[in-house]
């Protein structure tokens, strides 16, 4: 987090319009290597749209998104992932009929290259790559302890519990070997114990895997516990940013959460 280094992700004057509605409006954000940044804001503040814009899933109307110094504009989502940005979805979107192992294997598509030829002739390079894919997949799954490995590997993802689906989705994103991980409400729907555990894991993701992480979260205790920096969005604009203590005291933030201010106060108290 040295101040001099060039940012990993740099968003300049980003605009995203949906037929006249400005979902994101003139946003400026920087994320440095190895940083954990949380994005908060009331519903409809444009948080998920920001993620979608970064991962090229919605068209950008203006501004620029630069990753490692070069622009992401004009890329397809798969190319963005290939550059090193992986994401999860707010409403978990797994390949539910593929096995757990296949879910993490397929995510390595852009990191591997053996095509039809290798598969047809079962070349040595092909077999070696398949083994590597499997090993890397199991490593990503192993990050979550014994929950997703062992006998579960060859079960379809649809049998997983809700919390484990969220974990598998993160493992799938990890398997794409990104530099930056975008987590959309990673603990939503989890109970306090699970959510506390996942909060710890987010910290470990940076230390052990070296990811920079941007995550959207409504649970203020998670935000407080892991983020280096908090970005507050409101009506598609940057309201404020800074560390948790500053942001949570900011009257504008509390006002933005009008009606929801108790949430943030509760979080501060706890």
């Amino acid at each position, binding site marked *: 987090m040295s101040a001099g280094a060039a940012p990993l992700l740099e968003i300049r004057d980003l605009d995203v319009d949906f037929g006249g509605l400005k979902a994101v409006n003139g946003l400026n954000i920087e994320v440095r290597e190895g940083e954990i940044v949380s994005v908060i804001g009331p519903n409809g503040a444009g948080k998920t749209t920001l993620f979608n814009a970064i991962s090229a899933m919605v068209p950008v109307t203006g501004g620029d998104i630069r990753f490692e110094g070069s622009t992401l504009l004009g890329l397809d989502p798969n190319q963005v992932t290939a550059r090193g940005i992986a994401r999860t979805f707010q409403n978990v979107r797994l390949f539910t009929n593929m096995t757990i192992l296949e879910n993490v294997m397929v995510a390595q598509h852009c990191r591997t290259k053996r*095509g039809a030829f290798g598969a047809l002739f079962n070349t040595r390079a092909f077999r070696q790559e398949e083994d590597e894919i499997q090993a890397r997949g199991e490593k990503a799954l192993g990050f979550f302890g014994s929950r997703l490995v062992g006998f579960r590997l060859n079960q379809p993802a649809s049998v997983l519990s809700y919390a484990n689906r969220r974990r598998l989705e993160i493992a799938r994103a990890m398997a794409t070997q990104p530099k930056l991980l975008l987590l959309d409400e990673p603990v939503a729907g989890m109970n306090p114990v699970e959510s506390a555990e996942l909060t710890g894991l987010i910290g470990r993701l940076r230390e052990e895997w070296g990811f920079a992480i941007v995550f959207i979260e409504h649970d203020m205790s998670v935000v407080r516990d892991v983020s280096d920096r908090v970005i507050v969005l409101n009506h598609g604009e940057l309201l404020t940013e800074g560390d948790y203590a500053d942001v949570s005291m900011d009257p504008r933030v509390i006002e933005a959460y009008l009606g929801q201010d108790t949430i943030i106060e509760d979080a501060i108290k706890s």
Partner: protein
Amino acid sequence: MTATETRPSALAEFAPPRRARDLDWRRLARLGATAAFVQMFVSLTAMPVRLDERPVIESLLSLGYLFIGVIPVIAGNRIGRQVKLEGVPIHRAGRYELLGGTLAGTLAGAGLSLLVILITHFDIREPLVNWSPQLRDLLSFNRGPVFGVLIWLGIGAVGGLVGGGLRLLPTRWRRTLLTMAFVVVLAAILEQLVVDLVSGVGLEPVAEWFYARRGGLTGAGAGVAAAIAGVASFFGRGRLKAARARINTLEGPARTKANAGLILLTAAVMIVVPLLVGSLTNELLANVGLFVLLALGLNIVVGLAGILDLGYVAFFAVGSYTAAVLTAATSPRINPELPWFVALIFVVVITGLVGLFIGAPVIRMRGDYLAIVTLGFGEIIRLLFLSDWLSGWFGGAQGITAIGGVEIFGITTIDGTNPRNIFYLVLVFCAIAIYVSWRLERSRLGRAWMAVREDETVAEAMGINTVNVKLLAFVVGAILGSFSGAIFANKVGSVFPSSFLILVSMVILVVVIFGGMGSIIGVIAGAALLIGVLGGPKQPGLLQEFSEFKLLIYGALLVWMMLARPEGLIPSARRSRELHQEEFLQDAWLRGQVEADEEAGDEPETAERS
């Protein structure tokens, strides 16, 4: 009959039989009316008249009568059907089933009685072409309308009683009886194949004893077939399943060994059988093979990558025409007269390019638009081959004729005059197609196809270039289809635009869906059953009497499969999971395989959104 009915329910309880007077009259009326309507419809399509020419058991039963006679049985059986719900007891069968069955069957029979009356008193031969005195005579067994009316009421009642009575039998007996009936019908349908095969190994007398001269089983033959089937079914039940389960539980080298053994066995059968049978049967096998090849190709596109390509015939056509232009001496513009195998290289390259050319514009479209647009392309390709504009190249409506055979190192020439060799050629390419499908499905590419099929947006976000991956599936499918086309050109010896109607696409699609999308074995079985028994768009099958109705049946089959069993005859495990996710999860839950959340957490309300 349906999946829900045969599914063993751990929680089923038995309750005393329902009383006959509790009969659900509305259901009875609906079922009976439907059956009667089906009877009348089937009769008016002239199906019974045509199928009457095809005996099942000599001078006793024809396929035509079997066809209309079985409907009351089904109606009689359906009336006793109970919806199984968890915790709701199942009634044992009793008088309810017998009475209900008889009544339902009688209603079904009444449809034909009504038809006899109507035909006697009204003449609407214009527009209904089969509204004829012959139909009336057939329905009334040539004994006048009164007899006809009564006999169908009687047949319906008996049939319905039998159908309802089946429910009273213990499962084992019922299954045995049904197997016996099925085997007898099957033996009659497969007559040509069996006779050919049995005669091939020098047992002609057996075949003659078994089958009557004018077609159909002899009485004794039918008895023996039924007896064998009955004994096998009664005592052998579950053995097959157990054997399959045993193979499936094998691991590692033992599994590989078992698989290799099975493959070798299949290959041996495939090589030996054509040697034993005559050219008519070999012709049939070759036709089936061509469709297996087409279906395997389409299976990669539809089954693996989930792209509904309705213009698949385009690649069949391009393959055929390329082979024809390059090998035939009579090709109008260019006629290099290349050897077939050299031409095949060009076929692959050209079809691959056409696949890219058609695929690139459509691959980004949403699934249903893609279907219609590929259909459009299929039709455009045919119209171009047909047009005067390009007739200088492809001969227009006259097509290209006198296409030579496939020369193999000067040893032998494979052409349409020797269907056995054609079959072997097809077999080689089918083996290639099976290998390609099998390897690709289990590779990085196959996983990407699966992901695209499940959720294209997420697949894209996970770093899969969905456009390229889908395009590749399209092209691989196209090339496999072109093989079939190239062989077809040499088999028939000529190509005409009329061989490549959209109809062909539809038939291949029915084959793939009937067999089971994404399942190699299923697709092969589907092609063998449909093309082998009913026949292809222009190719006759074993039931040649069916040729007028096969397309009608294909259509009905497609609808019925989609409604009742969308995963196909022999489904791939994954496809059935996709289509029956809820049931699958229920089963897994019963087996204790679905985990619950570890602690009592919040309700996962968004979980089902995806």
